[in-house]
């Protein structure tokens, strides 16, 4: 025991010494601009978010190779909020107050974003949020680089309606805020398009649902009413794999009942035998299969950085690519990393996206994106079968919900408001 203690204390002393040198080493270095990365590296969301942490590290490394920003090197500060929503708020506070980061790139689920919103507002810092979400929000300190419902859900439904002649709709989702709000918007949209109440079936399942037999059988039954039927899926994360397996096993082919998914990308398909899924659809703003030179370079750089030839790229990664470049450009334009200056400078900033065009930051802190509909292929990639003719501007407040159709967001002076009611002419009005 005494031996153990001695060794133990010697170890402690040694590690203490090393820690001190590390700190002095940091002080001796030149001044850096710190960038916070707030993605779960453990817990349930690690499956999706770890990749985004890696892509941010790659983007920062590339920027440093190009000479950094404002003559300083960028330094990534990575924290792990462990898929624990309140911990997101704590870690965000730590990043801003303790580490003094200039901007934070992070969050995946809506509940984690909602949990950090007050922190970013209070401490006046910047958050770039890279995931498609339910909309109905615009905050001064947050930049939404993922798709709003009108940049993903609505065009997908339009595609099915016009190209596939779908008349009957199953809205299937996981039971939480994103699917519920998206389905509410879609239901209102479909009804506005003349779809009858009985032609819409809405179904929610718990997180991580793995027994899909009943639901797949219900979908089959719903689809046998003499009208072309499609499934609009907002099923989240892991639950998709058993869902698609059950569809495949039950013999539901994409030709009969196509499923269009908003949360299934290349990453999710990587753990799946895609043979039986060929032809099912996904709506995104980016696919790895998009054949542009800039995307080719990005994929190559990513594979080289991660050291694995089989790794795929996906839509939220592109969102970070766009968001990071926008932030860099805005900082260069403002000449400082001061949040207020960057917030003023970033509106109107336009950077190349990976699908061959340019994305611009709008006054409502959402960006312009093309919308692509892709069909799942045998190799786990998507083949684009349809795309919008131009870029779609992200709409913070849906035009199809009663509570939000009169609201607009504009963070430029003089309006400077995230929920301006055009009917009453007041900021903060909750709509008619």
């Amino acid at each position: 025991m005494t031996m153990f203690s001695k060794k133990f204390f010697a170890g402690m002393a040694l590690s203490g010494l090393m820690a001190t040198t590390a700190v002095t080493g940091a002080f001796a270095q030149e001044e850096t601009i710190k960038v916070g990365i707030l993605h779960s590296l453990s817990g349930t969301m690690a499956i999706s978010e770890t990749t985004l942490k890696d892509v941010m590290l790659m983007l920062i490394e590339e920027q440093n190779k190009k000479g950094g920003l404002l003559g300083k090197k960028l330094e990534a500060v990575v924290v792990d909020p462990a898929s624990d929503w309140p911990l997101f708020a704590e870690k965000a506070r730590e990043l801003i107050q303790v580490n003094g980061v200039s901007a934070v790139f992070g969050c995946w689920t809506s509940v984690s974003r909602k949990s950090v919103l007050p922190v970013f507002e209070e401490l006046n810092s910047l958050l770039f949020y890279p995931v498609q979400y339910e909309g109905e929000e615009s905050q001064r300190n947050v930049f939404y680089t993922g798709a709003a419902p009108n940049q993903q859900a609505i065009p997908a439904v339009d595609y099915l309606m016009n190209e596939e002649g779908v008349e009957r709709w199953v809205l299937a989702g996981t039971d939480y805020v994103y699917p519920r709000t998206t389905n509410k918007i879609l239901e209102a949209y479909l009804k506005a398009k003349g779809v009858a109440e009985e032609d819409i079936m809405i179904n929610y399942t718990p997180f991580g649902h793995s027994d899909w037999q009943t639901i797949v059988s219900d979908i089959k039954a719903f689809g046998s009413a003499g009208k072309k039927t499609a499934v609009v899926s907002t099923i989240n994360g892991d639950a998709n794999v058993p869902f698609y397996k059950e569809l495949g096993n039950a013999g539901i082919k994409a030709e009969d009942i196509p499923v269009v998914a908003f949360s299934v990308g290349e990453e999710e398909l990587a753990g799946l035998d895609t043979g039986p899924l060929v032809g099912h659809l996904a709506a995104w703003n980016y696919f790895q299969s998009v054949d542009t030179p800039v995307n080719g370079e990005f994929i190559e750089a990513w594979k080289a950085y991660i050291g694995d030839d089989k790794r795929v790229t996906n839509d939220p990664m592109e969102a970070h690519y766009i968001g990071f470049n926008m932030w860099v450009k805005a900082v260069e334009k403002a000449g400082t990393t001061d949040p207020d200056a960057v917030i003023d400078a970033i509106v109107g900033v336009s950077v190349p996206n990976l699908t061959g065009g340019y994305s611009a930051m709008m006054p409502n802190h959402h960006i312009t994106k093309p919308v692509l509909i892709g069909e799942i292929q045998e190799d786990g990639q998507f083949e684009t079968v349809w795309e919008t003719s131009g870029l779609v501007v992200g709409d913070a407040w849906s035009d199809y919900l009663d509570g939000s159709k009169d609201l607009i967001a504009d963070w430029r002076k003089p309006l400077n408001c995230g929920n301006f009611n055009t009917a009453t002419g007041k900021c903060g009005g909750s709509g008619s």
Partner: protein
Amino acid sequence: MNVNAYAPRSLPALLLAMLLALLPLALLSSAAGAQDNAALRPLIDALGQGSFGDTEKQVSALAATGDAAVVPALEALTNGDLYVRKADKAVVIGKRAGGSLALTDPLTGEALESTATSALDKIRVNNRLRRTIRAALGGLTLRAADATTRRQAAEAIFKAQDAEGIEALDAAIEAETNPGVAKLMREARAAAVLASDRPTEDKIAAIGTLAERGDRDALSMITAVQNSEASDLHEAAGAALARIEKLQAAWDTARNVWFGLSLGSVLLLAAIGLAITFGVMGVINMAHGEMVMLGAYTTFMVQNLFRTHAPDLFDYSLLVALPAAFLVAGLVGVGIERGIIRFLHNRPLETLLATWGVSLILQQAVRSIFGPTNQEVGNPAFMSGAFEIGQLTITYNRLWILVFALTVFAALLIAMKFTRFGLNVRAVTQNRRMAASMGIRTPLVDALTFGLGSGIAGIAGVALSQIDNVSPNLGQSYIIDSFMVVVFGGVGNLWGTLVAAMSLGVANKFLEPFAGAVLAKILVLVFIILFIQKRPRGLFALKGRAVEA
């Protein structure tokens, strides 16, 4: 097909002429293929041109030739194996072979020089096109020599509901020798008649044929008639619908029972290991789910070895994975017992916390080694697909898991009842000190029992990898259900675990259609809580002094 739209252009005009010329052939000759490939070549080569709409027209033109020689090209197209060679704009079939594509001629089937992917343009297909191709292939293979192909053809035509196929179907029914296939063809004909402008009597007869079929596709077609303008058909359609719906209600019950048993078998598999470690030994093992996860990852590793070293034997990978998963999870279990649990004997709260910690460590360890993303575990051929009993679709993977769960259960029961080791386990759990006095090495028995429970969780992981994600979180989703089953069934009783798993599964599936998946789960949980209030020892309580000890 809009004929006028492409009359002015020369190639389509040619196509149209050919189409008309070949139409009688399609109806008369079953021995197609004798035709001149030269006539088909321009049709095939036109496939790669223009939009999806253009390709669709070309597919229809090919189908109209009635020549079975175009079947390989259409099959390749729907499978995404058809390419345009950039150099000479020729359409070829490409199969991936290493970094390049092995090419064959779509008409003659002869092998061509293989080419790099970059020299070829893939001909894209979408769902609408796939539907057209499926119907076209159905029409072309209706007279094939192989009965299975003819059956698929009839199914495809049934789904396509194409009025123009009636004559071809009549001829095929005439020539059909297989009664099963003939019945399908008659149903396909009935479906086509409903879509045609045939007289009302024909349509009423067709509705009768479809009502006979009585499945959801028939329901769908007759509902469409019911909703249409043709009021003279409404009576017949209404009667047929009532008949089908009555039949469907009966099948729904059968379906729910099957789904329930299948869910029950998954619950049984997940819980059966826990029935040993918690039920028999009384250890609250929060790391039980992680043993399941380790089993699933072992399957992944074994399959990877098979993929790289013996891809032909892939179907047997699960047979190797089973003992491997048992050993891996079992050894980890023995390690946990020796390293932690034996120091916490009779301290349930500490055991709970310690095993919870172990579960987190194992999860993060797997996440660090394999990464946080899902790993692909393949289904061997005998576990893919489904078969039908009447209108009950039974998927093979679910069926095998049910069989497997019952087998594991039986094996465990025999091991506990009839082996020396089982006797020792029962002796130690009933009265540790007495067993020790009789010369049983209780520490060894403890370690082995815990290892057995963990090992069984491991083989459960092999089965669950076939229906669920293989990710570090796999175990978490089963731990609560497992405890629920064991507590409900009665701690320390294996039969209780079986009955509990099956009844919870069936109850869940009967509730789900009415209450939805979320509420059904909650209702089952509430029911168990109330049940435990009434019978704290579960369904099958152990009686006698052993319980009090």
